[in-house]
């Protein structure tokens, strides 16, 4: 059963506030006729009520009262679109620095980032921060929409200046595929159809670039070895047990030799099921359940793996995006959720903070809100981890405030090559 659907592309919009992310998504949805008549009427009525013209396209995704009052995006809006070639899940992310955690939420499951920036102002610090976070999160292809071309009289010189800046940064961050497209989200040029106002541009429109981008990239990382983090133990009629979880990394088959970690028990898969029905193999992304030959006391938080084996450790070197209101400091106690396992952790050392402008690591002993840094964590329990670059599921975790249960950090095992 194939679960990595090639017909479904997940994208996130990123970039600084007021550069036109929501307007571009509104334009894309309207021009590909994804909106129903009543939804368009509602956007028109809201636009009129707030005196912002006939149709403020940003209102298509900025659906909260506060967002419309302030004219900004506060949290991610998810929208869905279908064209003749594929389906899209679009996460329209906020641009403000104070909502960086929400942006990371939207980008963490994206196959592709749609970067929007204003041609007149180029790469702002916040756009650089978002690109850096997207690269850390493992997004490998980006479409950069250089917006507001109408305001610079469709000038190729203005566009080229920004292109050079973007290409330099993209190389540093290691993006594999980069489309840079001059557009006007407001007027629709190069959004769905290529525009006659930009005769010097010969590339695709934003939609054409989206339709030709690789889907399923989120699951498809440089994986080696299958992993099944156990979510739940199912009792089978007749007394046996199966271990339920979502497969990642590689396909599991009946008969595969596997290791149960951290107990380090070698055994064989004797059966695979989905929804109570027996299957021969479980591909990446399938919520399956597994029967093992060995009698074990395996439970939630343990992991069934094939070689090459992941690390089993209680000291982990990590990259952290810190969203807490107060700074993160050495010695701080938190709770980690990693795959299906929750463990208390303590910050052993903070090994530096990332300078967004230079992409260097500066010395620091704490991380302020929305800073990204390197930290070594000690965990109370033994954790089964892969480097984030080889497996996004077993290489990622969140940190949780023990008192409020708030999610205060996104973490990745290891360190990006550009740092």
């Amino acid at each position, binding site marked *: 059963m194939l679960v990595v659907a090639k*017909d479904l592309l997940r994208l996130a919009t990123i970039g600084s506030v007021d550069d036109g992310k929501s307007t571009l998504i509104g334009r894309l949805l309207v021009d590909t006729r994804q909106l*129903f*008549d009543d939804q368009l*009427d509602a956007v028109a009525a809201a636009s009129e009520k707030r005196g912002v013209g006939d149709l403020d396209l940003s209102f298509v995704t900025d*659906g909260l009262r506060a967002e419309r009052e302030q004219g900004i995006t506060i949290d991610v809006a*998810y929208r869905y679109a279908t064209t003749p070639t594929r389906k899209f899940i679009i996460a329209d992310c906020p641009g403000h620095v104070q909502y960086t*955690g929400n942006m990371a939420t939207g980008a963490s499951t994206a196959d592709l980032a749609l970067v929007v920036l204003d041609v007149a102002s180029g790469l702002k610090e916040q756009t650089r921060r978002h690109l850096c976070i997207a690269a850390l999160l493992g997004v490998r292809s980006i479409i950069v929409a250089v917006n507001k071309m109408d305001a610079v009289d469709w000038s190729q010189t203005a566009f080229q200046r920004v292109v050079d800046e973007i290409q330099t940064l993209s190389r540093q961050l290691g993006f594999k595929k980069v489309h840079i497209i001059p557009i006007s989200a407001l007027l629709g040029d190069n959004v769905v159809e290529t525009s006659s106002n930009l005769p010097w541009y010969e590339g695709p429109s934003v939609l054409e670039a989206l339709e030709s981008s690789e889907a399923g990239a989120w699951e498809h990382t440089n994986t080696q070895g299958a992993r099944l983090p156990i979510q739940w133990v*199912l009792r089978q009629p007749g007394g046996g047990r199966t271990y339920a979880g979502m497969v990642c990394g590689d396909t599991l088959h009946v008969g595969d030799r596997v290791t149960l970690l951290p107990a380090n028990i070698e055994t064989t898969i004797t059966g695979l099921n989905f929804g109570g029905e027996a299957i021969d193999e479980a591909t990446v*992304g399938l919520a399956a359940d597994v029967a093992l030959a060995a009698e074990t006391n395996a439970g939630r938080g343990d992991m069934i793996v094939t070689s090459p084996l992941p690390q089993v450790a209680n000291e982990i070197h990590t990259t952290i995006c810190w969203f807490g209101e107060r700074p993160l400091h050495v010695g701080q106690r938190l709770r980690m*959720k990693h795959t299906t396992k929750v463990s208390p952790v303590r910050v052993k050392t903070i090994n530096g903070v990332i300078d967004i402008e230079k992409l260097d690591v500066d010395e620091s002993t704490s991380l302020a809100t929305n800073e990204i840094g390197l930290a070594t964590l000690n965990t109370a329990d033994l954790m089964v981890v892969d480097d984030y670059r080889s497996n996004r599921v077993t290489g990622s975790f969140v940190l949780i405030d023990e008192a409020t249960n708030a999610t205060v950090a996104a973490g990745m095992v290891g360190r990006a090559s550009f740092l």
Partner: protein
Amino acid sequence: MTQRTMTTTPLRPSHATDHLDLLESHAIFILREVVAECERPVLLFSGGKDSAVLLHLAVKAFAPQQLPFPVMHIDTGQNFPEVLAFRDATVAEIGARLVVAKVQDTIDQGKVVDPGLLGSRNRLQTVTLLDAINDNIFDAAFGGARRDEDKARAKERILSFRDTFGQWDPRQQRPELWQLYQGKVNPGEHVRAFPLSDWTELDIWQYIEREKMALPTIYFAHERDVVKRDGMWLAVGPFVEPREDEPIERLTVRFRTVGDANCTGAVLSDADTLEAIIDEITLANVSERGATRADDKFSETAMEDRKREGYF
């Protein structure tokens, strides 16, 4: 206003099974995570198509075991009888425990004002729902809400935190990264979990067809006495009495969503099979809630306002 004459969507995407498999596994994963992390989950079941899909997925997630949580219906007392019949048959078939929380009880306790037999009880449900969550000490409630339904729902996390008053604060949502869903709450707080967040109306129907699921009969085209009120066709019955200027018409209709009988509109339709319904939805010009829900038409942020108070 802009005309939306034809959709660019092909009638029957040939690739449907691929993305349905992905959505299905994702939903099953969420169901298991919440059950593992929370002490006392419950699944909200209205008998509508979305909660029917949700319950079907829950059964798959824990097969061959019984459902490890009860199913709860918030009963406004203004239901379509076909939907109640479907509710009871479905719950009996899977052997689930059904909790029914009645808006009438909330009214009898004097907690809310009785809007009368013909008035809408839609908003009162919130009080009944929050009371039932408190009384049963539920710390997680699964719902069938989808992000494509409404612009406020488009903003909500898959696990949506509710404070001790049951309120949703759209400005203070927990970051929800990757597929790391964390549902830990302190006593008195709870989470709402929406495993169908990324499903669209079309996905729901294609899945129902693929899984050969049963549904309440009112989703399929049938003849019915209706009156036109506020631009919607309402079914004449105990909760909708025709007013003087509302002539009764007998028309072939179906319901695109299922809510209370007095605020859910029927659509004119000949679609009497799943296949015909899928074709109809693929070409629809009006959204599901726009076509059928009076409760969302009061203001620009009707859904956000109700959700802040603790609505589904």
